[in-house]
């Protein structure tokens, strides 16, 4: 389409405004984390790292961070096992109901989080509680794993479809057994997609709050839950600012790095 010069300038201007709209709020949070004042006011009167050093010694933050890491690792490990099983089955075998699997696996993430959350909550309370299993880290991991399976599944399935099965057949023809073929042929070709899937699953779990709220019970608190619970407490505001700033920078770096390494845009959290 031949766009006139003025049309191009208008598009460039609109794009710049939208980018400002995207980045200014994030920048404000980062700058504000260096605001020494206890109450929020913009612009900050001076800058200091006072609250940064306090945040790193805040017990609530550290224990919430630990809970989030445990939940993320647990959920990614389960998602890795279940998601790769599904991906191998769909990529390499024909069986009844194969088309349904792609729908079933995406359902926990396609439905709003609150649906998955209360479905699991009602199941845990009605079915698990009579057996003495209360809500806690265990149920959070189950909840997170449920919506992380699709991440590992999608990553691995794309890789398996791309490389095909000719190498594995050649390995079998040359006398390798199932285990050897997997160890020496299949695994090296899928390793990086497994790492990518696990990292994305961890990131998704680390950031999740809705399903977490409905499956965590009163005993434990993940980092997003800590932020949410302290958001409305005025005297915790400076610490919340620092945690938010750390998360903004901490999330940006790995995505930027993976982009530089893979030269392809990583898909969004729920896509």
């Amino acid at each position, binding site marked *: *389409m031949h766009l006139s010069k003025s049309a191009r300038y208008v598009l460039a201007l609109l794009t710049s405004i939208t980018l400002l709209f995207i980045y200014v*709020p994030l920048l404000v949070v980062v700058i504000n984390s260096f605001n020494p004042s206890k109450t929020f006011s913009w612009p900050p009167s001076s800058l200091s790292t006072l609250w940064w050093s306090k945040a790193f010694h805040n017990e609530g933050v550290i224990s919430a961070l630990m809970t989030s890491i445990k939940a993320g690792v647990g959920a990614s490990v389960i998602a890795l*096992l279940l998601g790769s099983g599904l991906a191998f089955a769909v990529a390499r075998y024909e069986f009844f109901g194969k088309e349904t699997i792609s729908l079933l696996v995406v359902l926990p993430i396609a439905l709003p989080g609150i649906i998955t959350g209360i*479905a699991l909550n009602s*199941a845990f309370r009605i079915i698990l509680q009579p057996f003495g299993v209360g809500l806690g880290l265990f149920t959070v991991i189950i909840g997170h794993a449920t919506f992380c399976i699709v991440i590992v599944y999608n990553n691995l399935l794309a890789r398996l479809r791309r490389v095909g099965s000719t190498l594995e057949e050649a390995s079998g023809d040359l006398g390798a057994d199932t285990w050897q073929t997997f160890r020496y042929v299949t695994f090296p070709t899928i390793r990086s997609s497994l790492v990518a899937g696990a990292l994305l699953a961890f990131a998704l779990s680390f950031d999740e709050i809705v399903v977490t709220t*409905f499956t965590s019970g009163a005993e434990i608190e993940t980092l997003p839950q800590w*932020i949410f619970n302290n958001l409305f407490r005025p005297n915790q505001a400076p610490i919340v600012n620092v945690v938010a700033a750390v998360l903004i920078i901490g999330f940006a770096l790995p995505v930027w790095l993976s*982009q530089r390494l893979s030269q392809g845009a990583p898909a969004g959290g729920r896509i």
Partner: protein
Amino acid sequence: MKTFSVWLYQHRRGRLALLLTAPMLWLVVAYLGSLATMLVSAFWSVDTFTGKLVKQLTFNNFSLLFTNHVYRDIALRSIVVALLVTVIDVLLALPIALFLAKVLPIRFRNFAVVLIVLPLWSSYLVKTYAWRTMFSNSGVLAWALKPLGITPPSYGLLATTLTLAYLWLPYMILPIYAGLERIPDSLLEASGDLGASAGKTYRNIVMPILYPAVIAGSIFTFSLSLGDYIVVKIVGGKTQLFANVIYDNIGTAGNLPFAAAAAIFPIVTVLGYLFFVRRSGALENF
């Protein structure tokens, strides 16, 4: 180990069963089972004295939801907000996607896409919190607009809608950008050579091709907005959306059956939306 490996080699069905059993048990029993439990519990009630579940068939939850005008208003408000968010995102996404795909030189394109995708990955809660500081009475918007004599909106429905639009914007930009990139420049030049103006080319060539991409994006913006209760809690002031009804009945009220009955509304609405866009023929191009 050796004998098992040999057995696996000889039994294709055995290998398939080994791969499928655990994930299918998880998804069907744990996940679909949970959804089924939720649907069944929507027909139960809670004993008001003991707070225990009464597992007897009742339609009270549904009749309360349908007859009480409070719930009807909240449901309507949620749908309007979800639609507004979708419209805002389409309006913001179209020019930026057009600029990225058709104006920006190719060597800058990947970098620009990363700029757009990067905030998609930063924490959902932190982004919402960022808008809380923007809309705060002593916040950035109030400070920036003060010289102009404008008072920005405080926490409320408008702040909620804008924040939701902000959160889901990349989900709209990415499919539209991908759709635009697939349109070859020669097609657009042909339209121009045959005498169409830029506006006419846009209406008759670009829009029909983009339509499925916009629908794809709208599925995210619509259903994510409809299921959200956190944003409205953080920047919505006293406003309530439908997901808050579900949340409050699980949390403070402890009325699981009523929450389960209420949860059916977003499920039905999202499925209805999918059906509506499918009838328009937009999903066939996926």
